[in-house]
């Protein structure tokens, strides 16, 4: 099991509001790539994705915990590729509360309180982290 420490510079990229990409693979080997609105920074070795609807991504990681996350930093023209492993789901606690609160705030402001409800915060362990720029490529430290 490989775990890397996320560089400090990746945290604001997670919060820049540009959609990220998550790729998963089912147990029978079919890849799935989808865009998501937000990746949450948990700590230096973990990220979280919101589980609101039981979609393909959620189903896949429960069959096959391996996933790939791509973060877009338009400002500096870079991308961050994170190889992650689904670790567990949280339905309470500070991470869940923060995600839930944010979803509730925006959903209630747009009249969709009943539609968006956080079922769980899926916690992923970061196994690798590399930065892809126009001219450079660097990786995180283990």
């Amino acid at each position, binding site marked *: 099991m490989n775990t890397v420490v996320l560089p400090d510079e990746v945290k604001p990229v997670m919060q820049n509001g540009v959609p990220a990409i998550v790729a998963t693979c089912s147990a029978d080997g079919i890849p799935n790539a989808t865009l998501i609105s937000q990746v949450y920074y948990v700590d230096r070795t973990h990220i979280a994705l919101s589980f609101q609807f039981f979609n393909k991504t959620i189903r896949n990681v429960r069959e096959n915990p391996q996933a790939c996350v791509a973060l877009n930093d338009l400002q500096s023209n870079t991308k961050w590729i994170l190889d992650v492993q689904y670790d567990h789901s949280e339905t309470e606690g500070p991470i869940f509360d923060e995600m839930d609160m944010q979803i509730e705030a*925006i959903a209630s*402001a747009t009249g969709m309180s009943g*539609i968006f409800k956080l079922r769980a915060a899926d916690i992923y362990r970061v196994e690798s982290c590399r930065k892809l720029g126009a001219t450079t490529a660097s990786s995180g430290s283990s």
Partner: protein
Amino acid sequence: MATQSLESLAEKLAQKTAEVEVLRHIASSINSTLDLDQIYRLVLGTMDEFFGFRHSIILLLEDTDTLRIVASHGYEDQPLGGTVIVGTGVIGTVAKRRRLMRVHNLGRQRAYFSTIRTQMEEAGRTSELSEVGPVPGLADPESQIAIPLMIKDKLIGVFSVESREPRSFSDDQETLVSIVANQAAAAIQNALLYRAAEERRSELAEAHEGLRQLSETLEHRVHARTRELEEANRELRETQAQLVQSSKMASLGMLAAGIAHEINTPIGAIHSNADVERRAIRVIRDVLEASALAKNLRDDPRLTRAFRIFDDMNRVTLEATERVIEVIQSLKSFARLDAPDLELADLHEGLDNTLTLINHLTKDRIKVVKDYGELPKVQCYASQINQAFANLLTNAVQAIKETGTINIATRQDGAYAVIKIADSGAGIKPEHLDRIFDPRFTTKGLRVGLGLGLSITYRIIENHHGSINVQSEPGRGTIFTIRLPISRSA
């Protein structure tokens, strides 16, 4: 490199020191005032001046589900008075969860959710959507920090700062906002409590004044009511006395009628017999005078004396029976038992009948002088008027201790009959004059019926739309003057 690091550290230290100083200044300033508006200005103004938070709002919890904006800074159209429903939007969610929230890229997040909303509307799933009301604050915020204002576990409001920049607020800024919000919460709570205490004090003072005025009003009312009750009581007693008196008079009248009837017959017989006896004696005298045989008898002194005794006795008997007959007539006339209620009555006859009835009180002691003028008959309740005369004449008699005079004068004065009854009795003290018609007033002790006579007289005259007044001087006697309308239509 080391120098640069040191410089950088020194710079950071200086910045932190400045921040701490500002925080200390804020704390000191807002805790030195109990004026809410001043607290708001200090907090919001300082946050902008020193930390660059250009758009900020303070909301207070108005009831369990509404927050109201009480202060704002940096908004073109001040959203004072605007409300946020607890649980709606960033501010409402912070109030509901009672946790700080820092959000970025609000515009993009809102756009994402709005896209989904549009799709749901197009898919006909509008029933699952709720209405979105206007949100106070910036129309297009991108970043926001909202923090609940808490006093222990109690939420009193929310403090919010906004920015149009997507990633305005750092961890440090979040910490600053938290510190200021905590200080502000305590200061606002103190000011609210102070204001509530002042309002309460003012309310109590108003209530106290109200009570004082009410108490005064009540006292007046009680006094007025007491007077009313006393007056009503007096009237009741007068009416009761009058009723009693009328009842008595009615009973007396009936009694008088009964007595008169019973006495009339034997008295009539006695009177008639005495007359017959007188005529019989005359016959005996005539026979003796004409008879030569009775010449010796006529000059017999024993016979002469016997005739004389018989003449005297017979005369007394006739006078006595005539007197009794007269009294009975007066009594019947006084009671007016067989007369209609309202009638044209001869007041002189009433006065004379009354005098007859009290003759036993005036005889040999009090001289009654009558000065009757020309009086037409007066429309009145004769029995009541006679009662009034009786009360006044009885009082006059009782006022004269040894010997004295009662003067009765009558005259017509326009539409009125005027009757004056004057006595040469003890007179009435000046301090009693105002009260003599009061049913409770008496100088005769507590005998039943006494003290009511003049008040009844007053009431009788009043009922006849007349008037009665009194003039008196101690030691010089009393004059009662009655004015009665001759006709009730006068």
